[in-house]
Every structure is written in structure tokens, then in C-alpha cells.
């Protein structure tokens, strides 16, 4: 392993910062947060001198991407797919640090999708690193036209508002789709998001290729006993977007002491549960929905697309979620066979149309079971002018001085 002193000089700033942030740092005496140290202080020299000078990105293997700078420098990024919810033990991370020091330039970049990228500056080292990672039991791959990762939220690991568990879904889906990480190509980038409730901490459900979202699928019940000690009736009433909750009031004093939920109005959004723990779901009724076809990139013929619900309900089946896994695998497999190269799921569906999508996948057409309103209502958002034309921009220039 590279010697510690040498490491430390490379990361000048950590040393600098350690010196800088001395003195009394106790939060009570200094509650103001300390701003992150400017990046120029800790980014290693190899990267710093090539900032903004990259000219080429090239796929070496599904686990290695090569970045070429106009200075001639090369940096390789080796991708490791992390465990669901990016839960790393200290031991595992230490192992990764050792490998990053041994074969790399001592830089590890975690990504919000739950991957870890280890940087190195030499192709041979990158390949060795890939090999070594695999030998140590890590799953590598996911660059380019592959499954990038499956990103679940925390759910039952620590979350209090979870309807269903998400990491176990990610694990089950991953086991079924693992070949798309390295061995098999997909037509385009694929990333899958899993969230335990409509809060969607697992990533943007509205712009995901495939999103699995847990939802109550029922009008929640209220635990009156618990509510009376921890709940605030007015807060919960205010939280409901459709006004399905009314406070129960003491007739003599008029003071609110509990709540009633009207099932005929409730849309099962789970927002009351976000406000107070004393809301109960019947686990036999909870389930997941599947959305497909969203993307945030301004790419392709369509630009940004919002995901649509294609499977409205599958009951929860922990720990291996067999029905859900079959459905998602089916959607992905059909896309892989039918899409043109470079077509993300959303672009593919835009080309063939939803009728064809349901025909090809064989899924029951969700529109037969649920009616989606054409008009933007409280829960439907129109997207104005996603793609800007020049005239819009120039309209602003006229007024630039007045903004």
C-alpha cells in the first residue's frame, strides 16, 4: 500500500484543512455550518490540471471508462455497483480504499445512484483493478449501454413512513437483471429506481426509465390511542391534499383531539403518514406500482419525458417479490429486443405508442382499469415549454436590465 505520508501530500488540502479547522469546533459554540472546502484544495493534481479539458470519453469494458484530456493525460474510471441503498460497511469501504490506493490515484467517487467510481491513470492498472475487484466479490460494470444501477430508498432499514420495503426489491430485481450489468448490452442507458412510498427518496419517479413505487393502495386507518399522545390534528388535516381528513372535536370545548379520514375522498398518497406515525396501513393491502418511460435529459427526439404508470398494483411479496420481478424483467427484455440502438425506454415508447407497448409486453392495458384525466388537475402538472426556442431567450434579453 502507498505510504501514508505520500498520500497526504497528494491531498494537500485535507492537511491544510485539518490545520485550519482547529480551535473550538463544538456546535454549541459555533452552530453555523462550515462551508465545504473549495474543491481546488483537495482535488488531486492529475484531475485539477485537466479540469474542463476533456475531449474524449471511451468505453474500454463495461466497467471501465477512459477520459482523455487535450493535455494527453488519461484518467480511467472503474465502476463498482454498490449494495442496495449504498449501505457499505466500514470494512468494505476500507477494502475499496486499499484497492484505490494500490491501483488508482487514491480517489473514490460515490454517485447518487449508488455506484462507486474508482479513478486511475493507466489502462493496465484499470484492468487489473477491475479484475481485483471482481476477485474480491464486488459487482463491476454498468457503464455505457448497460444497467447503471438499481437505486432504492432506505425504507424498512430506517424510514418511519415506508409503506413497503425497497432495498429487498432492489436486491430481487438485481438478481434477475444482473446480466445487463456486464455481459449483455441494452439499447441505451437503463437505471431503475425503487421507493418504499410515494415520497420517492429512491430517485425521481417522474423521470425514471423504470420506477417501482410502494403505495398504501387503501385508505389508511388511524391509531386513535397513539394519535392522542403524538398527533397534531390540525397539522395532519392540513397535510392532506384532497381534504379527506377532518379533525374530531370535543363538543364541549371545540378542541380538536383526533382525526377522521373519509375513504371516498382519499387518494392513498400517504402524506398524512408523513406527518404522524399513528397512521396505519393494512399490510395485506399495500402494494407497488410500476412506472416507465421517464427521462430528464434533453436528448433524443423528445427531450424530457415524464414516466407513466403501467402497472397500477402488485401486492407486496417480500422478501423476493416474484410477481414484480417477472413484470419488470419482462418490460426490460421486451425493450432490449425491440428498441433501436440509443433509444431509452421513454423514446422507444414514444416511437411505437402505448398501444404497441402493451401489446408487445403483454401487460394488461392499465388504461382499461384506471381513468387518467386529460386535464391538469391538482396532481397533474403541465410542462410548459420544455424545449426553449431562441425567441424565448431573446424575449429575456430585451428585459435583461429590468430583471
Amino acid at each position, binding site marked *: 500500500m502507498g505510504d501514508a505520508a505520500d498520500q497526504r501530500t497528494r491531498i494537500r488540502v485535507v492537511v491544510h484543512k485539518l490545520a485550519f479547522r482547529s480551535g473550538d469546533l463544538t456546535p454549541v459554540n459555533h452552530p453555523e455550518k462550515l462551508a465545504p472546502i473549495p474543491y481546488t484544495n483537495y*482535488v488531486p493534481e492529475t484531475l485539477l490540471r485537466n479540469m474542463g479539458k476533456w475531449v474524449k470519453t471511451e468505453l474500454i469494458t463495461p466497467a471501465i471508462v477512459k477520459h482523455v484530456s487535450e493535455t494527453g493525460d488519461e484518467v480511467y474510471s472503474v465502476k463498482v455497483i454498490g449494495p442496495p441503498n449504498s449501505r457499505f460497511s466500514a470494512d468494505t469501504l476500507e477494502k475499496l480504499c486499499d484497492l484505490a490506493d494500490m491501483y488508482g490515484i487514491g480517489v*473514490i467517487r460515490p454517485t447518487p445512484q449508488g455506484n462507486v467510481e474508482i479513478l486511475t491513470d493507466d489502462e493496465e492498472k484499470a484492468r487489473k483493478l477491475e479484475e481485483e475487484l471482481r476477485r474480491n466479490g464486488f459487482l463491476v460494470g454498468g457503464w455505457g449501454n448497460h444497467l447503471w444501477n438499481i437505486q432504492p430508498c432506505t425504507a424498512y*432499514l430506517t424510514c418511519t413512513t415506508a409503506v413497503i420495503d425497497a432495498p429487498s426489491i432492489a436486491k430481487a430485481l438485481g438478481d434477475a437483471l444482473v446480466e445487463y450489468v456486464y455481459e449483455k448490452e441494452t439499447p441505451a442507458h437503463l437505471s431503475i429506481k425503487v421507493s418504499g412510498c410515494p415520497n420517492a427518496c429512491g430517485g425521481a419517479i417522474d423521470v425514471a426509465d423504470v420506477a417501482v413505487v410502494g403505495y398504501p393502495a387503501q385508505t389508511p386507518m388511524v391509531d386513535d390511542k397513539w394519535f392522542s399522545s403524538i398527533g397534531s390534528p390540525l397539522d395532519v388535516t392540513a397535510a392532506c391534499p384532497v381534504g379527506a381528513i377532518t379533525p374530531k372535536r370535543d363538543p364541549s370545548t371545540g378542541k380538536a383531539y383526533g382525526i377522521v379520514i373519509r375513504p371516498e375522498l382519499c387518494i392513498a398518497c400517504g402524506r398524512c403518514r408523513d406527518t404522524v406515525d399513528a397512521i396505519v396501513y393494512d399490510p395485506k393491502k399495500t402494494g407497488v406500482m410500476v412506472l416507465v418511460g421517464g427521462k430528464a435529459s434533453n436528448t433524443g427526439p423528445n427531450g424530457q419525458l415524464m414516466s407513466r404508470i403501467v402497472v397500477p398494483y402488485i401486492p407486496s411479496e417480500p422478501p423476493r417479490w416474484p410477481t414484480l420481478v417477472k413484470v419488470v424483467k419482462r418490460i426490460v427484455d421486451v425493450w432490449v429486443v425491440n428498441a433501436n440502438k440509443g433509444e431509452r425506454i421513454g423514446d422507444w415508447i414514444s416511437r411505437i405508442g402505448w398501444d404497441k407497448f402493451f401489446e408487445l409486453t403483454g401487460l394488461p392495458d392499465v388504461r382499461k382499469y384506471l381513468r387518467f384525466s386529460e386535464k*391538469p388537475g391538482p396532481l397533474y402538472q403541465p410542462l410548459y415549454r420544455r424545449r426553449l426556442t431562441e425567441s424565448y431567450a431573446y424575449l429575456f434579453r430585451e428585459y435583461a436590465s429590468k430583471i
Partner: protein
Amino acid sequence: MASEELPIDPSLWPEPPPKEKVEEYLAELEKGPWPSHVTELKKTKYPVYIYGMGLVAGVTPWATSAAKAPGIYSGVLSRMSHPWTRISPPIFEDHARVLIPSAQVFTTTLLRFLIEASRKYGWGLLQFIGGTGDVVLNVVREKLIELNVFLRRIGLDIGGSGDVMRNTVSCPGPLLCPYAVYDTLKARDFTYSCLIDWATYPQFPYKIKFKYSGCPIDCLKAQARADYVVIGTWRGAPDVDDERLKQWIEEGGDVEELVKSCPTGAISWGGSKLSIDGSKCVKCMECIRRAYPAIKPGKERGLTVLVGGTIKSRNGPKLAKVLIPFIPLPSPDKLEEALMTMFQIVRDRIVPKWDEEGWRRERIGDTLIRVTWHRFLSDFAKFDPDLASKITKVKPTEPYYTYGITFFNMSDEQKKKYLEDLNKAMEAWQ
């Protein structure tokens, strides 16, 4: 524990499941080629058995708790084992969100310190990293303050929860990506240096998020998740370098394909010269991705600012809307000035007004729907009224009415019917 002592109504909640069942479920999740979180958690002090109880019961095993941490106003979240698990005394789970370096560049030196922190003050468990872009570190409740001091010493801090400015995230941008139009890392650092008190004290109706994507590819999906989104863009046509294009063609680049790939037909090829009609270009990055560095983002660069994207919120998920289509960025060193233009509008106009008028737990995207886009532009952003009405009147050039995501309550019969049909369909897949 006798049920009388439980704070909950036990008839509504599950019974603690049998031990064998819990172990069976956990074991199931250690099988298969995909990395297993259960295997990973077993290497730490995380009480994985509680997670297993939740899995079997189909109900989350955690309830809200609160940790005392004098001086830490945001960044610490606390849980305790749910009363239905009947674990007595309850097990507490506290975690701290750690604000990390821009673009998540961790040197191993720094990471080793973080690992040391998690062993010394926590459970030897990190979420590396969460969807919010912070590292989440499990911590033993009594050691919270010590942890915070340690993190500050190594140049980090705890923060980013509650009604504050949350962790600001930037895409790797110029650090690794050729397409970046501006320095996203610098933009993130600058945000903190301007708005550090926003990050410290909860003071708003709800959270505020800034996100910085270097180009219209928007790797962060910023426009779907952040209140204020900055995306690098340019005006007019992408920049074509004829020399390099020639080279690109010699190396096997297919010009016909390139011309065809443009969704608006902005590109034409005269046999020897490529010309791009800037007025048609919608900045989709397609030609740039194919022929970089022969084709680059245009020379007249700038920032687009969008407002009001959210996933979780009152009106459901929504994409952000364009607030300022173009802030010119004549040269990289003018970035701070360009950002200041945005900060002035956000900090001095929009946020104070939102503070006044926003409902509790209402993100700016929901407020702007409630007060209408036009009123938002004139009263919140305080644009010239004339400009505001012109913006609202601009007709979408594409009929871009798309459905948002709705929630619904299916009846039991509806569910049954759907599942029958689904099962029938699934048989045909075998």
C-alpha cells in the same frame, strides 16, 4: 411487555413475527449474484434483525424519535424501534447527514478518516451516498457532538435535513466530463459561501434545494428534484470545428447519421461543410455526443435557471419550469457574477415572499402552482409586469402537456380483476 403498556392500539399493528421466519427472510436476501445489503449490514453493528421483523410483518419497524444535540440545528435524524416490535428497551437509530466535497470527490485519505469516524462514533456503517447527495453515517446517540467536532476537523460538517437549504449537489462537470458548459463544482462551493446561514438554521416553510448540471443532459435529474436548478446551455448553434470534423470523418464518423440524428433538422451537410441552423437547435446534445470535440456546445454560453421541481410534495411530482432562460457567461471567470444574478432573484425576492406566503411543508413548486405562474413571476420573482405577461403568454412550441403522476385508491374488486388479468398475461410469458 404487556400490551397495556404499549402506546399503540395493538389490534391495528402486527405481532412480532417468529424468529425462524425473520431469519428465513433475511437469508433469502443473501442469496444471488447481486450485492446484498443484508450481508453488508451483518458486518456492522446495525440491528439487522429489526429490519427482518419489518420484512415479515410488512410494516416498517421504525418510529420517530429525537436526539438531543445542542448546537446542531440540522442534519441529524433519529429513529427508535417501533412499539409494535415490542423490543424493550427500544433500540435507537440515529444518523447524521454529512456534507461532502463537491462532485463527491473523496480522496482515500479523507475517506479513511470517515471510516474511522464511523467505527469510533457509530456502527461502522455508512450510506455512501444517499439520494440527497450526502453521506449518511450511523452514529451512537451519546457521541453525536464528538462526531460533529471530528467531522469538522477533517473539513466536513453535518447538515442538510429539515427546513433548511439542503445539500447542494453538482454533476462532475469539468472534473471528468467533456460537455460541461460551466464549472459546476465552483458553483456549488459558491452557493455555500453565499448562503451558509440558510444551510444552518431551519427557517423556511419547507426545504430548499439547489442543483447544478453542467449541460442539458442533466445527469443529476436536477429539474425533477430541485427547487432551483442551474443548467449550462448556449445560444445559437453548436460550435463546429471544421479541422476536427474532417478528422472525425476520416476516423469513420458517419455524417449522414449525424445529420439525421438531429431531432429538429437543424444540421445540413453540403458535401464538405457542416452548417447548423442555430434558430432550430433545441440543445439536445445529440450531435455533440456523437462528434465531440469536432462539435462542441456553442460559443455564446450561459446558464438556464429553472424553478420548482420536486418529487415529494403536495401536488405530486413535477418538473421545474424555466425562470430565466439565459444568463450570459462570457468567460469562465464570470461564473460568480452570473450566479449572483440568480441569487439576487432567489435570495432577495422569491424566498422572502415564499416565507411570507408559503404554507407549511409547501415547496416553491407547489406555491407557484397555487398562486399561478403569472403571479409568481410578477409578485415573487418581481419581474417587470410586462415581461411576466409576455412569458405567461408564450405558447408552448411543442404540445407538451404530459400527465403527472397521480395517486389512486383502487377498490378491492378492481385490484382483483387487474391481478387476474396480469396473471393470465404472465402465463403467456413462460
